[in-house]
């Protein structure tokens, strides 16, 4: 590695990291939080068999799992303006990521709810609770704990998927790297550098997942 490449890597590190801290991480966290809310509601509406809503949820999951995230981003950012709906790049990315991760996570949570032993809901009923009370006090809390490893998968996948936002003009880490490559003609080292930063982010998040799992392990 020449002196010049090392120079470039050092000077570009901050330039890549900063958009990571101001775009990639907030975009991931906000989208995931929204996606998780969508997922819980979607899973509950399906498991509780709310008439009408169940079909809507199934349709939503079907569409968002069955189409590429990139296409979803393009439809929301480039497509919707032609029917008069203009959404800025960052909100558009947030919407696409939330809906996408929500579809996957809803199936994770739905599966966990269904895996809770039937005795638990029978005990809720035998104690006089309604289905909704049992769901919120007993079944859902247990299901969410079981879901943590699988949800962490979705979360880490989302960290990396935010790089797709570069395609709809969000200047996150990957877009900045692409620009630096165009200036310096050092694709290999710069892309390795951004890969390394993604890896650091994901490692930190995996560590957080472990802590969370340990904390929530009580009773199961």
């Amino acid at each position, binding site marked *: 590695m020449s002196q010049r490449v090392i120079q470039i890597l050092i000077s570009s590190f901050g330039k890549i990291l900063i958009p990571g801290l101001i775009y990639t991480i907030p975009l991931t966290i906000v989208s995931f939080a929204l996606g998780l809310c969508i997922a819980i509601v979607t899973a509950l509406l399906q498991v509780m068999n709310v008439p009408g809503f169940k079909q809507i949820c199934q349709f939503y999951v079907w569409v968002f799992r069955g189409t590429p995230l990139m296409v979803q981003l393009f439809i929301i950012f480039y497509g919707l303006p032609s029917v008069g709906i203009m959404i800025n790049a960052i909100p558009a990315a947030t919407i696409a990521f939330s809906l996408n991760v929500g579809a996957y996570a809803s199936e994770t949570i739905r599966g966990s709810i269904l895996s809770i032993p039937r*005795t*638990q809901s*029978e*005990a*809720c*009923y*035998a*104690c*006089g*609770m*309604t289905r909704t*009370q049992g769901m919120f*006090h*007993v079944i859902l*809390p*247990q299901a969410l*704990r079981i879901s943590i490893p699988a949800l962490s998968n979705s979360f880490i996948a989302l960290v990396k998927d935010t790089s797709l936002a570069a395609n709809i003009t969000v200047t996150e880490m990957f877009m900045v790297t692409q620009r630096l490559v165009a200036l310096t003609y050092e694709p290999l080292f710069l892309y390795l550098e951004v890969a390394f930063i993604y890896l650091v982010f994901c490692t930190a998040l995996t560590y957080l997942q472990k802590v969370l799992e340990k904390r929530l392990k*009580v*009773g*199961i």
Partner: protein
Amino acid sequence: MIQISHLNKSYGEHHVLKGIDLNIKDGETISIIGPSGSGKSTFLRCLNLLEEPEEGQVTIGEHQYDEKTIHKNKKVFSRITAMVFQNYGLFSNKNVLENITLPLTVVKKENSQTAKNTALKLLEKVGLLDKQKAYPNELSGGQQQRVGIARALALNPELILFDEPTSALDPELVGEVLSLIKKVATEKITTIIVTHEIAFAREISDRIVFMDNGYIVEEGTPEEVIDHPKNPRTKQFLQRFTRNDY
């Protein structure tokens, strides 16, 4: 007063309950015995509507359901009864204290201090005051079942249903649970117990019901049913238990 008449229940082709009739006086302790698959547990679960019978009528106090009014009666019947499960059925995300207070605050809308006081009193009664912060998976089977019994008592139901409360326990843990149930049975609360513990049933019950193949074959006092059974099927069933068992 509990009146059960003409209870019928099938799972597909399999006819599990074939017209069960039984009357129970307030405060009575009834044990249901019989071979596996005879419909004992299904019968019990029809009384709090965990299972829905196809036909029949059940009256508990002033509440009544028949096959046409099951749905609108589920809430009432789940609230006037309490059940102790074979595999304990404790809420695994709640600690011992919360297992008892949760139904009180959520179902009975008691404030949390009142619920806590009730729970502590019952935990003292079942001898588990020191385990109030433990989670179910940190307790032995016997301890879990004692919490299950405390939870059922906390609900102050008109009828307590015990569904094979000692069948999942290690033999050395059966004693502690049976002696607690015995204590409960002497109180004025109406109790129905499905059990394989013949000696225990004989000791604590006002009446024994022997079920076989979906029918009540024989019922009467423990002396009548266990010591002097009339029906050949009862005799055959009891022969499997040597005299030393009870």
